């Protein structure tokens, strides 16, 4: 009979888990038009990223976007070739121009950057141009009168090498989270400067560090500029959660009533055990006495 149960159990647990999946995708180029967008970002280390996103967009269905990949994109500063890159699987080609590169500028200090795709049999030629001023952001984190102050200076360097404060630009401030950046402040730079009082109680990483970004985004005049700095302003190690009363598998201290209840229960049980054992010894003693008398 045991064998029967064994077989029964084995049969019962034998299930079919195979699920076949097929997916068709039909692609007709006529329904698509290409989108070629060029952008440039001045990065934290003052190098400059030039990047092209090259997509085919469905004329009817706005959600249907296909990246065009393996297309060679050439990046120019005026007529000077900065370099070339191929688009990735996401349709993005990018190039980092080092900090010390000297750009060709016009009389007003504007840099003209251009991205060119020279076309293939199936795809037309594409070109996009961006004209920006090269500016520098300087992020300054200071505790002034024990107030944590974030200050940013924005300036361009003119042909003479002197710093010219930026007149007007909107700058955003962010804190680096685990996956993305959280905006904490936005304001307009005037006379090349903007400052604000830092939020308190920002948690920070395990040792209390937070990374603050200052960014100018999609400015017509300056393109994208980004600057960051890390500082030990976070609330840090002491996680506020410990004072909350969330569900946990483990906490620094269990609630007192738990100790009390458990201890009472256990003591109650063990007192009875003890009582029982004492009586066992009494039985033994009685037994010995009987042995003696008999």
């Amino acid at each position, binding site marked *: 009979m045991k064998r029967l149960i064994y077989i029964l159990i084995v049969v019962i*647990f034998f299930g079919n888990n195979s699920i076949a999946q097929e997916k068709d995708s039909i692609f007709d180029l006529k329904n698509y038009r290409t989108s070629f967008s060029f952008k440039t970002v001045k990065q934290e280390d003052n190098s400059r990223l030039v990047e092209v996103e090259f997509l085919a967009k469905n004329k009817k269905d706005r959600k249907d976007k296909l990246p065009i990949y393996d297309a060679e994109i050439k990046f120019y500063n005026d007529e000077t070739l900065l370099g070339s890159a191929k688009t990735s699987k996401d349709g993005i080609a990018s190039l980092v121009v080092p900090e010390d590169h000297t750009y060709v500028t016009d009389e007003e200090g504007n840099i003209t950057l251009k991205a060119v795709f020279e076309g293939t049999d199936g795809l037309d030629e594409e070109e996009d141009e961006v004209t920006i001023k090269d500016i520098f952001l300087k992020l300054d984190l200071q505790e002034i009168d024990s107030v944590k102050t974030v200050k940013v200076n924005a300036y361009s360097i003119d042909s003479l090498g002197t710093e010219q404060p930026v007149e007007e630009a909107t700058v955003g401030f962010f804190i680096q989270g685990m996956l993305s950046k959280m905006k904490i402040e936005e304001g307009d730079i005037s006379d090349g400067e903007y400052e604000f009082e830092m939020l308190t109680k920002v948690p920070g990483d395990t040792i209390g560090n937070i990374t603050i970004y200052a960014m100018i985004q999609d400015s017509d005049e300056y393109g994208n500029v980004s600057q960051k700095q890390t500082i030990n302003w976070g609330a840090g190690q002491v996680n506020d959660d410990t004072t909350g009363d969330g569900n946990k598998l483990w906490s620094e201290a269990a609630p007192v009533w738990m100790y009390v209840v458990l201890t009472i229960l256990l003591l109650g049980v063990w007192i009875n055990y003890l009582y029982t054992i004492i009586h*066992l010894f009494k039985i033994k003693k009685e037994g010995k006495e009987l042995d003696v008398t008999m």
Partner: protein
Amino acid sequence: MDINSRKKELVKEFTPMLQKSTFASKIWMGILVFLVLIGLYAFVVQVTKGHSVTGMRDNVVWGVYIINFIFFVGLSYSGAFISGILHFFKTPWKNSVSRIIEIITVLSLVIGPIFILLCIGRLDRLHYLFIYPRIQSPITWDIIAIMTDLFGCFLYLYLTFIPDFAILRDNADENTPAWRRKLYKTLAIGYQDTEPQRHRLEKITRIMSTMIIAMAIVAYTVLAWIFSLTLQPGWNSTIFAPYFIIAGLYSGVGVIILAMYLIRKYFKLEHYIRKVHFIGAGVVLLVISLLYGYFTFSEYFSRWFSHKTSDVDLLDTLFSRYFWQFIFANYIGIIVPIVILFFKKFRNIKSITFAALIAVAGLWLNRYLIVVPTLETPYLPIQDTRPEFIHYTATWVEWALSFAGIAAFLLFFTLIIKFVPIIPMSGIIDHEREVDTHRKKRPYAEDK
């Protein structure tokens, strides 16, 4: 009636049971030892190769081990509960089954926690639990609780053994090996069956019986909470604490009936374990199966009708991939015993045993369906959903260890009843003494 000569008689009657070694019993022991050895091999494989040899993965972190744990522990608690009730209310016909129940209680409480150990990844660090305990950690309390329970059950079992040890000590014949005599003498701790000693022993046995009832309820409630206090669909249920207790009793009574059947058959104890015991246990099983069915229905019906999204997913899984298991566990495993036990004419020893078998198998499967499909349909979706992460199938290692557990249970059982008679001799004496007193008081009353 001379009690001492009656004791001698009983010892004579039961001695063959303790000392004979038939061919059948050797084969039986051989098979059990073999199964345990296979289990040990599987254990070595698991420790050396790690948990990847089991079917447990990131998502389904619990498998048949935990189900065996719940099952054995449930068995133990319900055994404690039933034994405690029998002792506490001094049920008249308890004598023939009480020792069977007590042994089941203690052995399943020994085997059960072993399955929890099998779930632990780094067994080589097990001793850390004892040398680095932290009072804040639930696991420390767990260990204290299990130790308390185990100690209590052993103590209780021992108390019920003492009078028989004394009888065996006093009536050893020339065939009894010296080591047995010595052991009986030590274990009987000078119990002479005098009036005060008997009263004392009765009193402490009664105290211990209430203790183990209370512990059984508390411990099994807490075990139920391990599941029901999470937010998992299929677990987060207010009914779980009483449901687990009823389920434990269901399997407990079932296993007791199976044990009664096997022992009666093998030791030819028809005189002691009678049809009336089976009928009695059968009626108890009937009442519990009605309750258990009612609770199971309440649990699943409430879930089904409220259809919260996560519950619907779980029920879909239960009614598609686990369809036959679900039908067996929650329909056949409940309705068949009810039908067999409800009608008087169906109730005979074999049919009751069959009903118990169905009940036990159904209940084990019910526990499986509470644990595994729930883990397969988590409350929060997981990101990396490879099929082997989501779907659980027990591997040979897990089955080998499961059957080794059952084999070890049976092996220990066999060894214990080779050492102490399965029918408490002292109980027979007590019963006869009582009948005697009664007869003396009412000399003309008939006794049947």
